[in-house]
């Protein structure tokens, strides 16, 4: 049963899913009505969202919302679980190169309160554990570790330190203090090579001093050894090469999805589903191969809609680039409500977008990927990449989203907004989206609608 693209509420999805099931539309083992995630896991915030009505989107949501179950099942079958934190596109790639190991993102727990009805439960618990509202909502992770109600405790916890996020380091240090041992690895801040200094090319057209690449490679070697010990299997270069190829297969699907959606005249898929899709390539939602299948389904759906000239918004919608993820997913729905279409994004998952070089020794390739992450370099590099993408996808307006408490947002946001507006000559707006944005919705909507109106008047001029 194919319907014209539309965003529908949870209730409508459940009715549609029931019809599909009666008609024998095959769903994966984790399929079913989305409403069950509200009933069983208390993800009441799903009731506030509007979802794409394709079966590919249903699969995406069910895949995302069953991750904890998947992890528990894996644990029950004796698989080893690795918590990867601030890995910059490296640790899950290494972990999935080994048999019977699954990596996941405990910091993905920061989405949990955003989906739950008692939204501030985890955040308040985190505060009681020593991470208050002056830090990023990722602090929800502390409470999730403590109460054990969400994901199982990992067998190994790996986190980078150094030139990554200060908030995260503080929270991860607190986590360690509360009894979860962390394997730390050092990440230097990327810098421009000096004249005459040996340097290496990084993904995304960047360069870094060879010394820095060597340092990260040695750090990752330590991580590789620890991962191998977990299952008494050496993480050989050959295994790692295969792992990189498989990770790249997922990344290629995501690249195809972004290209299909962002280059299209209308919006073949909504902004919310694009945000969730990008998250899959970061940590594979605890099943690398299934991530690829889920993304592949979205690519097919988007391609079909483009060919049929179908869109979730009017084809004349303003083409918007979105910077940073939002703490409340509801804010993503506002884009289409205001008449915009997502035509580019930097949700801070850039390290999972570029292909990992396959023609280099694998640890070296991973080191270069990590060093290319925008988070470890100057904001100017991030802005340059965004400008290129905005030009490529003919973007007409930019939204820079801020996460309250996330310290990098405070200093990066204003720079990005001003720089992108000046460089591209398009209107740009900064919005702050807290974990529950209900009360702020009218204000957020005014900001978004106003920036789209400015773009509209420029289009007419």
């Amino acid at each position, binding site marked *: 049963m194919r319907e014209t693209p539309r965003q529908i509420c949870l209730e409508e999805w459940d009715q549609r899913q029931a019809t599909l099931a009666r008609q024998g539309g095959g769903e994966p083992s984790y399929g079913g009505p989305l409403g069950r995630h509200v009933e069983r896991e208390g993800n009441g915030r799903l009731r506030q969202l509007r979802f794409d009505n394709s079966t590919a989107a249903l699969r995406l949501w069910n895949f995302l919302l069953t991750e904890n179950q998947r992890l528990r099942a894996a644990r029950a079958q004796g698989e080893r679980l690795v918590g990867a934190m601030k890995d910059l596109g490296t640790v899950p790639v290494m972990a999935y190169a080994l048999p019977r190991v699954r990596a996941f993102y405990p910091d993905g727990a920061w989405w949990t309160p955003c989906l739950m009805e008692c939204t501030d439960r985890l955040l308040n618990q985190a505060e009681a554990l020593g991470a208050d509202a002056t830090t990023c909502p990722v602090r929800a992770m502390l409470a999730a570790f403590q109460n054990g109600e969400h994901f199982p405790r990992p067998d190994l916890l790996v986190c980078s330190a150094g030139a990554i996020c200060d908030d995260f380091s503080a929270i991860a240090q607190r986590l360690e203090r509360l009894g979860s041992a962390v394997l730390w690895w050092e990440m230097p801040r990327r810098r421009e090579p000096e004249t005459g200094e040996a340097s290496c090319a990084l993904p995304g057209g960047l360069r870094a001093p060879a010394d820095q690449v060597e340092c990260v490679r040695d750090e990752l070697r330590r991580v590789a050894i620890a991962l191998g010990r977990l299952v008494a299997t050496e993480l050989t270069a050959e295994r790692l090469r295969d792992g990189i190829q498989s990770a790249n297969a997922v990344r290629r699907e995501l690249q195809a999805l972004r290209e299909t959606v962002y280059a299209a005249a209308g919006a073949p898929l909504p902004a919310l589903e694009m945000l969730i899709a990008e998250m899959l390539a970061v940590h594979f939602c605890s099943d690398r191969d299934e991530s690829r299948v889920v993304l592949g389904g979205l690519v097919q759906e988007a391609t079909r809609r483009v060919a049929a000239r179908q869109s979730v918004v009017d084809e004349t919608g303003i083409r918007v680039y979105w910077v940073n993820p939002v703490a409340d997913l509801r804010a993503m729905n506002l884009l289409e409500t205001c008449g915009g279409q997502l035509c580019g994004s930097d949700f801070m998952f850039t390290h999972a977008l570029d292909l990992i070089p396959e023609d280099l020794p694998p640890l070296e390739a991973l080191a270069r990927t990590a060093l290319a992450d925008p988070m470890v370099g100057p904001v100017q590099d991030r802005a340059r990449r965004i400008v290129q993408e905005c030009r490529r996808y003919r973007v007409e307006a930019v939204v820079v989203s801020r996460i309250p408490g996330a310290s990098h947002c405070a200093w990066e946001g204003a720079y990005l907004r001003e720089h992108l507006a000046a460089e591209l000559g398009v*209107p740009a707006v900064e919005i702050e989206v807290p974990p529950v944005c209900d009360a702020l919705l009218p204000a957020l909507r*005014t900001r978004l609608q106003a920036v789209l*109106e400015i773009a509209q008047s420029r289009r007419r001029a």
Partner: protein
Amino acid sequence: MAGLDGAAIQSVVATGYGRNRVPFAATTITEITCHARGVHHLDPAARSIVEIGGQDSKAIRLDEHGRVRDFAMNDRCAAGTGRFLEMLASRLALDWSGLDELSQRSQRPAVMSNTCVVFAETEIIGLLAEGVAAADIAAGVQHSVATRVVAMAGRALDPPVVFTGGVALQPGMVRALEGVLGCPVRVPADPQFTGALGAAILAGGMA
């Protein structure tokens, strides 16, 4: 209010915070675009708008065609809004217009260090206890609103600057804003209706 009967209305544009709750509107347009349109109609030379209403405040930059180039908005806190004036007026046992009348008698506006309404209330009590004249406190409150709005605007506002919104009805606020900006500001007739005027003009273009 405008004396029109329903049959004379060909198109309706809803604006402002309640714009999505007007079922008979043909479309909704933000107050930012509407204020810009209204101001451009009244004063085509205007390049910047400061709008201070009861709920929020905005700084809007315009191009030579009256189109919005950029905007900044305070919608998160009472400081820099009409609400701030109202709350602090009540601390001085005055109403909103009484605060303005009193401020005209100020010799030396008090310096208010807090832009947060809660702390500013405490500060007023302290100033009164120190014997600072109520007129100077009233002028200080207006100055604090002006400072807050100009700081929110970020970069300098290009002249001519037009001041709209209900708060522009207070001559003391106009003076305070001119003082902080360092340039004269223009106030249209009925500044509280500039957004509605813009909405009507935009609706006219759709009819």
